[in-house]
Each structure stands twice: as structure tokens, then as C-alpha cells.
């Protein structure tokens, strides 16, 4: 990928499978924690969200994601891999727009580091959304 952290359109089941394979080649990792963010079909002022269009500051997103990965790996010694992928462009309701996968030796660090990565993505990844009705 040109950009390791952003992907055009939804994160498809096929991509999820590929990322699972990518994260899964490590027999020392006993724990894999995954978070998948999906577009909800929320009703806003009586109108139903059918999709979200995501835009990103691509170059900075790459840099920030890289930094998040490094921070998490430094904070959780048992963590082995941290994968972050965020959609840009249109993602329809029910489709996935964010995937975080953290592998670790044991469950405590994989689950905590996954949550921590998620919070950092929310705070630091330069991505914006526009609801489509």
C-alpha cells in the first residue's frame, strides 16, 4: 500500500481476512484483540444516515498512525503487532470504516493496548466525516 494506514472505501470482509492473516503469522502471540468501527444507520433530526464520507489529511495521518503504533508498543511490553486501518471516501451504513488489531503474548496487554490505540486514533488521526442521508 502507498499509505499503510488509509484505505479507499469500506474495510471489506476480504480486507479483514487479509489483515487477520497478516497479524496471525506469529505462534508466540497468544492473544489478538480487534476493534472494528462501523457506520451506524443513526437517525439525525428525522433523517436516516445512509453513509459517511470520510476525508483525511493523508500525509499527516500516516505520520500520526506511525506514532500511535510506536507509543503503544513502548507502553505495552507484551504487545507484538499493532495494525491500524482507516477508511477514506464513502462508507455505507453497516460497513466498517476502522480496524485496529493488536497481538500480544497474553490477553491483558492485547485488550488494553487495543483500547488505548482506539482512543489515540480518535484523538490523533486527522480524519473527518460528513454524514450522507
Amino acid at each position, binding site marked *: 500500500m502507498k499509505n499503510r494506514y488509509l484505505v479507499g472505501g469500506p474495510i471489506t470482509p476480504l480486507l479483514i481476512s487479509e489483515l487477520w492473516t497478516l497479524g496471525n503469522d506469529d505462534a508466540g502471540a497468544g492473544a489478538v484483540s480487534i476493534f472494528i*468501527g462501523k457506520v451506524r444507520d443513526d437517525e439525525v433530526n428525522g433523517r436516516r444516515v445512509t453513509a459517511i464520507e470520510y476525508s483525511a*489529511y493523508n500525509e499527516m495521518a500516516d505520520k500520526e498512525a506511525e506514532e500511535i503504533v510506536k507509543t503503544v508498543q513502548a507502553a505495552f511490553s507484551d504487545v507484538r503487532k499493532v495494525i491500524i486501518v482507516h477508511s477514506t471516501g464513502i462508507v455505507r451504513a453497516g460497513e466498517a470504516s476502522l480496524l485496529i488489531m493488536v497481538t500480544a503474548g497474553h490477553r491483558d496487554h492485547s485488550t488494553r493496548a487495543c483500547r488505548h490505540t482506539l482512543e489515540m*486514533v480518535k484523538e490523533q488521526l*486527522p*480524519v*473527518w*466525516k460528513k454524514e450522507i442521508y
Partner: protein
Amino acid sequence: MGNVVRVLYFGAAQELTGKSSEKLNAGDTGSLCRVMLEKYPSMRTLSFRIALNRNLLREESVLMENDEIAILPPLQGG
């Protein structure tokens, strides 16, 4: 007296300015904001942070010729 910098608009800032980027003239981020808010009064309603050359700024900064400034409304990833 200022330098020509490239300003990138994201999210709501794009909608309020009607553009995704432009060149503006300013010597530091403070004067850049004044220039911008004068040009786009509706931007006053927007809370935003500024990145200089892809680094989030935590305080005012001088600007060099060709610096890349990004106007970042509250992030909405996830």
C-alpha cells in the same frame, strides 16, 4: 511583511471556506489566523487546531516561505 504559505482546509473548514487549499501571506500563525478569519468570517464559529508541516502546533509559531499549514477542526475518525 509575511511569507507565502500553503493553507490546507479539512472537514468543516473546507465547507466554510469553500476550498480545500490556498496560498496566504503571513509572518506567523497569529497573523495568519487574523487574515483567514477576516476573509472567512464564518470560520469564527469553528473551533480548530493548526498543524505546521504536519506537526500539531501547541503554541504560536513563525512561518517560513512555503510552510504547509493545515486547519484541523475537531477530529472525527473511528
